[in-house]
């Protein structure tokens, strides 16, 4: 069963909901501009992004005086794009993919490797071919380094990437055996990169290379297919495996529908995925225009980055200086989400895992700093309750009646409603 499309024209709450999920949130004017549209048009327009970026990005990772500062600047540049960029859905998808095809700056410490990886996530954000996307990620210096396939040689296999390709990137646990992991590693021998190795060479270009003499050319059996399989075959067989459709669709549902996805709806997307041979754009267009999408309200706990970016976009993208933006990347980190550095290759679990005493305290502090603090950006017109909470009459409305606009905005920002999407 594919997903049922929404037939009504978007109401104000529908529009606010759509923008919370696809644009981190929005101003009242942006919400009004969507009211009355049909859901398919809204989804199609949001997905029609190109690769243009926000002008005036103050962060240039090439200026980093060492790998550490370079990585800080990379994070700052991404946050700038998340907050001020013209295509928030592209960035939301890039963030989602960075939590799927995970790499981490604990190991990936080269400016080109990181930029190349982020560029891939943006270009393939709504990819027409998940298989192509997977192949390009598998051959990116960032992934080759992060999961050690650059060390995977004939006679000396390293299974790290081969395992995670199946367990985390394509089929998920279930349809493969330990033997498949080993055979996949053999087929992926010889895939490595050249250039940009070592702390000193963090600014040097690096690129994928295939070293024939390090490749194990023998016969292998992988996911039920036998032959003299090569790395490309492994990636294709994993990425196009029938179970991949549901496994990756479930992640899209987690990003856009609910922390605890509805399995029937996931299977609907998986069917579209299989019918279109892994056309993520088609899956997303159907998903973001579906009844299921519009019926699923307040079921995603915003991640730290979504919380920060959501607050700033709802406040109308106030201009913050570079230092303040860098501080915000660190604040998001203390709340549990360092951009490009999930705790491990599984990525952030998200949902209720974002919430504990410490992260709640930080959310309260951040909301105060953005609205009431001495350095809070000026608030010319307070966002409406709808823009802040997604609801025209939120439960917290009564509590804000006697407050000034800054205080009311603060209280909304720390309400459960704002923290959900």
């Amino acid at each position, binding site marked *: 069963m594919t997903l049922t499309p929404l037939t009504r024209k978007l109401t104000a709450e529908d529009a606010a909901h759509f923008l919370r999920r696809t644009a981190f949130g929005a101003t009242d004017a942006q919400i009004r501009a969507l009211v009355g549209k049909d859901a398919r048009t809204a989804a199609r327009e949001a997905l029609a992004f190109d690769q243009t970026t926000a002008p005036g990005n103050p962060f240039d990772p090439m200026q980093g005086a060492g790998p550490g500062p370079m990585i800080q600047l990379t994070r700052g540049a991404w946050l700038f794009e998340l907050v001020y960029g013209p295509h928030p859905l592209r960035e939301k998808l890039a963030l989602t993919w960075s939590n799927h095809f995970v790499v981490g700056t604990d190991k990936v410490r080269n400016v080109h490797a990181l930029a190349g990886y982020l560029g891939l996530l943006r270009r393939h954000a709504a990819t027409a071919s998940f298989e192509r996307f997977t192949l390009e990620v598998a051959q990116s210096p960032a992934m080759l380094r992060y999961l050690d396939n650059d060390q995977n040689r004939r006679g000396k296999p390293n299974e790290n990437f081969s395992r995670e390709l199946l367990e985390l990137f394509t089929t998920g646990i279930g349809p493969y055996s330990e033997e498949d992991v080993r055979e996949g590693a053999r087929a992926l021998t010889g895939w490595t990169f050249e250039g940009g190795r070592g702390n000193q060479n963090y600014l040097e270009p690096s690129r994928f290379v295939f070293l024939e003499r390090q490749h194990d050319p023998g016969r292998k059996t992988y996911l039920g297919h036998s032959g003299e399989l090569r790395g490309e075959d492994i990636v294709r067989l994993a990425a196009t495996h029938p179970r991949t459709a549901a496994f990756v669709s479930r992640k899209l549902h987690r990003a856009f529908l609910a922390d605890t996805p509805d399995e029937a709806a996931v299977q609907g997307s998986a069917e579209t995925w299989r019918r279109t041979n892994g056309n993520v754009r088609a899956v997303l267009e159907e998903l973001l225009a579906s009844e299921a999408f519009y019926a699923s309200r307040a079921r995603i706990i915003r991640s730290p980055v979504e919380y920060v970016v959501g607050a700033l976009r709802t406040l109308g993208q106030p201009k913050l200086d570079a230092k303040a933006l860098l501080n915000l990347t660190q604040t998001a980190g203390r709340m549990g989400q360092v951009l490009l550095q999930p*705790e491990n290759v599984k990525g952030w679990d998200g949902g209720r895992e974002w919430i504990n*005493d*410490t992260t709640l305290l930080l959310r309260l502090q951040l909301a105060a700093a953005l609205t009431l603090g001495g350095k809070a950006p000026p608030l010319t017109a307070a966002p409406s309750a709808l823009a802040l909470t997604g609801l025209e009459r939120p439960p917290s409305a009564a509590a804000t009646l006697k407050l000034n606009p800054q205080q009311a905005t603060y209280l909304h920002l720390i309400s459960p409603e704002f923290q959900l999407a």
Partner: protein
Amino acid sequence: MTNRRDFLKLSALAAAATTGMPGFLARAAAQAGGSKTLVVIQLTGGNDGLNTLVPYSNGAYYAARPTIAIPRKDVLTLTPDLGMHPALRPLMGLWDSGRMAWMENVGYPNPNRSHFASMAIWHTADPSQAQSDGWIGRLAEKIGDPFCASNIGAATPQALRASEFSLPSIDTVENFQLKLPQGLGGAFGDMLDAARSGEAAFLTQATRQMMKNTARVQANAQKYRSGATYPDGKFAAQLRDTARLIAAGVGQRVLYVSLGGFDTHAGQRAEQDELLGTLASGLAAFHADLERQGLAENVVVMGFSEFGRRVAENGSAGTDHGKGSVMFALGQGVRGGIHGSSPDLEDLSDGDIKYRQDFRGVYAEALSGWLGLNAREILNGDFRGPGWLA
């Protein structure tokens, strides 16, 4: 459930805490839960047990690891066959005084080489992977106090997941307090009081719990003065906060600290050496601190990792995911020594050691022997372990 009035009382308490208000809440909780504390150390990523507790008299060990084995001359000798990795030297004092235990060859049936599946098994104490609650979460529900166990760090591990409530994560004790902007206490209470369901109700509940927990910690934490010099770094800082919470006597029975980075697929020596150094210097300072506070007899530390690594090194001077590893414990309450027998490195299963000791037996000793709880109910079965407590 707190109501608005409770909230106002709690914020008054939090405000008064700094001026020396008696911690009656804390004392009541401590009485309810006993005075012993278990500190769990998680080594994330799969710590290589063979290079931690080194079988230095075993030729098969050196044959399997031509480049990354710990040379015999570097090993810190414990027994005629076993010794510690040289980076663990700060723990030698504890070993020599009989306060450090190693549990050999620990694992579980049908081992899983996925980090996440295996970690979930250690967290839930359920190799069938049917449970989603953690063993410490279940322990907390048994005690009935959502503050009797805490994680020290930003993200709460699954081990502390409970079905009825969420156990706190305390990133730093210093910042673990609620400071609402002037004049907004009432509005904040009204906002929380509004009726909600689903995830919104979860967030309301989590916020109320946070208000209780922070008040409880701040009521007592100011008393602590560190009794030892801790090394730099996050792990040591988290251990210092652990000592601080214990010294504050806020009634926590289990505290949980993690050290990550043990997934040493390549260039293992440099990485693991540094991590074990961090582990050992942090734990040595922690123990010294507790001794000076007069609290050492009430605390034991138990450490684990989700799996060990393959016996043979790989082609990248590292090791891939394996099965079975060592656990350790330290403290005055520990029966020092090596518990259990070493794995046979010439009789392997798929390149891995064959475990002999189920980790749930090691947990059971901590639960029943140290915390005085019914291990059978928490672990859903009878598990026998080595008697690693004195």
